Structure formats: structure tokens, C-alpha cells
């Protein structure tokens, strides 16, 4: 018999600290698989945002820099400009990227920096204990929107992938989910494609992954997957919003 599924080389052999059923683990694996697929492990540098994924460096068997909350795209810009032949990606949550880091992500995309952004949208601040995120759905209760998110008070859930896709500098932009095997397979290809874009010097690539946070959603993992299907996907449609063709982003 042949081994058809094993732990990717780019993940260290340790267990995640994530809660049961948390999609961060799945996303870590998808990213590691993409790195392995193109044999990039020895020339990839990850930039960790601050959130439940701040321990990226404990799990990936690659070089990692930790960025201040929200600033991973700026840190990645500095890294990539200094090392244009390395592969650089950021890994950021929705609080990190869409709230405090809004300015950095927009401008990094707009500059068309040749790097990849892995954006984990779980509609909540996981690490700090379940506060409202910019992507929290209307009506969704969180610890800082205890009566449910109300647009008059807190505005609307932001659709980042759509917004990033409108920027000239963006070369690849897609949204995927992980709640079903079918979605997962698409996600796998999409993440891979994002890295491929970077390898081909195509410029800025961005993947938004709809993820569950069973703990802060107050649901068991399977129910959380259902919520992704029933509540998240309708508001955050899946798909590839932009894909520049050609071999170079010029």
C-alpha cells in the first residue's frame, strides 16, 4: 500500500493549540501542502499576524517573522523587497486584517506587492475571547455586540475579497470555505494557485478562507460547519474574484 495522505513536510510534528474543530488547523495544513507541492519550504518566509494564529512559527517548519497586530502586510513588504526571490506570505485573521490592519492590506494590495495573503475570516476575534470583528454578521452576538451586531451601531460586515479585488494592484483574489470536503478541495487548489502566482512574479495574491470558531460561536464543531454553509457563504459568496493572466503582472 502506498501512503496517500500524510502530514505535510512543512508542518512540524507537534499538535496544534487550536480548539477542537477550529479551521485554523485545516488552513495551516493547506498552506503547508501548497508550500510542499511547489517545493518551497526552504525559501519561504511566513509572517504571522496576531490572533489565534500568532503561533504560526510553532507549527510551520519554515522561517517566520511575527508582525504587530494588523501590520503583517507591511512587514511582508519589507521582507519581500529585500528578498525578491523568496516566497513570502502573511497569515492573518479578520480582526488583524480587516479591522486594525485595513490600511496596510489595502495599500499592499494596491502596490501590487508580489506576495500572498492568507486571510482567515471566522467572523470573530478568536484569540481575545470572542469580540466583534468587521466581518461579524448582522445579528450575530459577540462579547462586544451582546445584543447582536446592529448596523446602526456597528456598521456592516465587510466583504474583504470583493474590496481587494477592486484594486488595480491585486492579481489574484478568491474566497473559499472549508466546511465540506468539496469546498476543502477547492480551497486547496486556490491556496496553491495563490502561491503559484507569486512564484510567477504575477504580483499580489489574496485568499479569504471562511473559517469556523466553534468556541466563540458557542457551537460544537459540526454545527459550526453548518453555520458556515447557512450563514457565512450566503453573505460571503465563494469564488475567484480576480485572476490576472499572463506570466508577469506587468
Amino acid at each position, binding site marked *: *500500500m*502506498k*501512503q*496517500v*495522505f*500524510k*502530514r505535510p513536510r512543512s*508542518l512540524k510534528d507537534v*499538535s*496544534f493549540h*487550536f*480548539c*477542537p*474543530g*477550529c*479551521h*485554523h*488547523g*485545516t488552513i495551516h*495544513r493547506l498552506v503547508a501542502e501548497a508550500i510542499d507541492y511547489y517545493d518551497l519550504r526552504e525559501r519561504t518566509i511566513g509572517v504571522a499576524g496576531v490572533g489565534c494564529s500568532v503561533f504560526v512559527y510553532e507549527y510551520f517548519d519554515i522561517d517566520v517573522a511575527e508582525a504587530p497586530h494588523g501590520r503583517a502586510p507591511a512587514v511582508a513588504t519589507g521582507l519581500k523587497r529585500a528578498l525578491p526571490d523568496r516566497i513570502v506570505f502573511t497569515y492573518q485573521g479578520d480582526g488583524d486584517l480587516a479591522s486594525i490592519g485595513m490600511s496596510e492590506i489595502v495599500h499592499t494590495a494596491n502596490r501590487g506587492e508580489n506576495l500572498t495573503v492568507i486571510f482567515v475570516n471566522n467572523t470573530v476575534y478568536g484569540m481575545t475571547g470572542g469580540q466583534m470583528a468587521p466581518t461579524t454578521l448582522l445579528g450575530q452576538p459577540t462579547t462586544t455586540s451582546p445584543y447582536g451586531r446592529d448596523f446602526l451601531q456597528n456598521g456592516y460586515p465587510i466583504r474583504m475579497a470583493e474590496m481587494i479585488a477592486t484594486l488595480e494592484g491585486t492579481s489574484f483574489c478568491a474566497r473559499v470555505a472549508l466546511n465540506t*470536503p468539496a469546498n*476543502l*478541495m477547492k480551497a486547496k487548489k486556490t491556496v496553491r494557485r495563490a502561491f503559484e502566482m507569486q512564484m510567477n512574479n504575477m504580483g499580489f495574491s489574496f485568499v479569504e478562507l471562511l473559517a469556523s470558531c*466553534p468556541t466563540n460561536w458557542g457551537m*460544537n*464543531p*459540526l454545527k459550526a*460547519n453548518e453555520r458556515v454553509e447557512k450563514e457565512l457563504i450566503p453573505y460571503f459568496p465563494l469564488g475567484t474574484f480576480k485572476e490576472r493572466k499572463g506570466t508577469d503582472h506587468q
Partner: protein
Amino acid sequence: MGKIIINRERCKACAFCASVCPKKLIFFSQEVNSQGFYPVEIRTEDECTGCALCAETCPDVAIEVWR
């Protein structure tokens, strides 16, 4: 003709694998692991097709698959 190995110390009992296995081969064990979870086990290896759906959905990369 498949085979899976579940790393019971890594398993957090999320039940994703059990929910996607087309053969419904995966169920919860009765004994807690060192992390305090009741990890999953495979009922019988014979029926496993090695489709790897279980492994693909496992957020904790706790399953390896052979075919």
C-alpha cells in the same frame, strides 16, 4: 483497500472525520487521551477504501491514509 492510522493523542474529537467517512467507519473511543478528549477510532479497517476524506477534513492532521 485502504488503511488509516489515527493519532489518538492528537485527536480533539471534533467528529469531522466521522461525519464525512462514506463508510461510517469512525466512532468515538471510550477512553480519554492526554489532552482530555475522547479520540476517534476506526471500527474495522476492512471496509476502508482509503479515500482519505477523513484525513482531509481533520483540522488536527491526526490521520494518515494508505491505499
